[in-house]
């Protein structure tokens, strides 16, 4: 619940900016510092302005959120702690050649770095597909833009779902059997 502003914010901030530099300040550390070094040191007169922090727009925040989601779902914490190799390797028993293994098999909670990143990418792609589908169904656009959004969205979702199913089937051979 928001407090109704009986005390307008701007007024207090302007008064306190001047007051904090005067003797009427109630900040004890300020008083302490005023006595100890600055009774004999003279601070130079500078023209400094506190930088004004403005809230970022919701699009920027959403992009950051998507990026964080991608990292978490790719298992980045697992990568940092367990430090698996980027890609596994197995040796062919007959020829002796070293073959790469993309999906760590044997357990559900284990991955190589690249498999984690590609799966995370598929998940985010699916999410973006649904978002594009919603943008396509928005009324106030040209028809061509809507069609391209819709087709991009549908193809993203289909691709992401098919690839995710493929990945999980490779990783866990007994899946859905």
């Amino acid at each position, binding site marked *: 619940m928001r407090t109704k502003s009986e005390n307008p914010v701007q007024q207090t901030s302007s008064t306190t900016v001047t007051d904090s530099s005067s003797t009427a300040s109630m900040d004890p550390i300020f008083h302490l510092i005023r006595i100890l070094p600055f009774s004999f040191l003279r601070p130079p007169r500078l023209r400094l302005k506190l930088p004004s922090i403005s809230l970022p727009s919701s699009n920027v925040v959403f992009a950051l959120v998507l990026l964080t989601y991608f990292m978490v779902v790719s298992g980045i914490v697992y990568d940092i702690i367990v430090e698996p190799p980027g890609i596994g390797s197995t040796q062919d028993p007959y020829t002796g050649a070293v073959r790469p293994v993309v999906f760590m098999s044997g357990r*559900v909670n284990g991955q190589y770095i690249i498999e984690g990143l590609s799966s995370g990418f598929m998940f985010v792609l699916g999410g973006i597909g649904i978002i594009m589908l*919603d943008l396509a169904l928005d009324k106030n656009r040209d028809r061509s833009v809507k069609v391209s959004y819709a087709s991009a969205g549908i193809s993203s979702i289909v691709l992401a779902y098919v690839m995710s199913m493929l990945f999980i089937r490779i990783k866990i051979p007994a899946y859905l059997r």
Partner: protein
Amino acid sequence: MAVTTSTPTSPPSMAQDLLNSLPKTLKLKTKQQELLIRVATLGLIYILAFITRLFSVLRYESMIHEFDPYFNYRTTLYLTEHGFSEFWNWFDSDSWYPLGRIIGGTLYPGLMLTAAALYKILHFLRFAVHIREVCVLTAPFFASNTAIVAYFFGKEVWDSGAGIVAAALIAICPGYISRSVAGSYDNEGVAIFALLLTFYLFVKAVNTGSLSWSLASAFGYFYMVSAWGGYVFIINLVPLYVLVLLIRFVGFQHVQSGEHMAAMGVFFLLQAAVSCGSDIWIVLQVFFFLDWVKHLLGDVKLFQAFLRITVTGAVSVGAIALGVGMASGYISPWTGRFYSLLDPTYAKDHIPIIASVSEHQPTAWSSFMFDFHILLFLFPAGLYFCFKRLSDATIFVVMYGLTSMYFAGVMVRLILVATPAVCLISAIAVSATVKNLTRVVRAKVQTLQSGSGKGTSASKGSSKGVIDNSQPFQKNGAMLLLLGAFYLLSRYAIHCTWVTSEAYSSPSIVLAARGAHGQRVIFDDYREAYFWLRQNTPPDAKVMSWWDYGYQITAMGNRTVIVDNNTWNNTHIATVGRAMSSYEDEAYDIMKSLDVDYVLVVFGGVTGYSSDDINKFLWMVRIGGGVFPVIKEPDYLVNGEYRVDKGAAPKMLNCLMYKLSYYRFGELTTEYGKPPGYDRARGVEIGNKDIKLEYLEEAFTTQNWIVRIYKVKPPKNR
């Protein structure tokens, strides 16, 4: 939720007669139809959430699963037999011999009290059920309740359609099912219900501003605190959320103004040692208190003076309190488990016992996929919809979702806490998308005549989402997409049921495998061994085993154990670990000092069971070596590799754990075509087949050699 009434064009006369012959009461208005459908759906979801968790009851029997639930069951039994005040002041000398354990003060009583209350209610209604049945079915019952709360929560955040989808998603989501199957009698089964209830009541209080909802939310939080240690999540999330709302609506000025800066800094420092949540609470209290005082005092100068005096006084008192607290040790830093959430590498380097628990491992992508499936796609889409329509409630849900997803990424076990948020946000995505699509499907087609501009149908039609007549495929396309959406949701349901049936319904105490001809083979060795202990050992016998089995031995075997799953005393566990990793004579001295009568080991070499003590042995070495430097891990490895065959390290081949696991195993042929002494779990022939025990003798080995019990011989007469 406007529903257009369908006007029948020209029904055949027979149907017309039938319709007219129905009594007036059965013909429902649209609103009542909608209510009926909604209530019927929620009823079905309630039943579904319950029955999908009953796989193991149907396959095996109604029994308690795993390890921790056995402790909870034992305490609930004690509570129903002896009453609350005995339970609250219970000192248990049956575990952690010779230290004992203060049970009353070290557990979360919410779960036990809930189950005991249900038991008492059922007995009052003259249903004479055993407390074990109540315990087994508590978690599915509360899962059904959680689904209903999710419906109300979704209704609060978005609309009732999203609520129903949320209830349906959470009823079958594997992330929640994993900790709330029938038989999994653990704190989380009740705690997730309390968590969602608290959050729902809190959002309701934020939306309505009423005091009664906030009071209800406080009671919900009290229930949560009594049920699970995860209440820390609530107490940190809620103040963070309030801070975000403040910043969003009031702006940065309050935070920036100089008069608060230094004082706030000191306040932060003061509270940092105790809890981050109350830290932010204090800051918020400061905000509102100062605003109120400013309003009261009126005069600005007076207020400044008041502020000066208060802040100086508070800072000095706080500094003195902090100094005294730190010096006397009263204020302690964060416990290891919670600290490892913020710094995930901490446990790996410093506390091996936390790092060894498999639930505490960080999460790989496949665990996410297993537990969430489609919801992983719907979650970012749902976030997008929430950002599109920002309100107090959606901000809360977004924050809950993001923070819980981060923690779920750090620890597998916490996927459970993220599940309600993910289900809610995905439900928003599903509901919004389906609404969009159905709007297109049901839109009236604009006729060519209205293109001239005058007809009333044109003006009415345009408000309902008219589509251009030149795209007839739009309706069909939307229909196809709707079918696609339903296909995806049905795949989700199939996945959830499969995962529940195959992965999360195992009681862990009873093992199952496929025989040679595909038939199901059951290994009930654990309960066989515990029952043997109960029947064939003196009542005051002490059993030494690795801490995993402590709760089960105390609950089912009814014997005193040295260490159990509570793992509160690392040195005691390290002593047991040292005993297991030493040569037999050193281990005998340690066992004699602990008064051990029996030793229990779990061995999977005959059945191929891979969670046995030999596979856990390195953790015993690490934990023992963490406290007693005489145990060194490299002694047991060969070139960094852990082996049990001929090439294994000599210390490994002669340590107590090896001897107890493989005693007489060298004579046994386990697999056709392999030499005797072939270990099926490690896939190698063991190195030391001729094992002689000097200080212990074999007391019991179960049918499939999974649990082996040895008796410690008394010292020789001199």
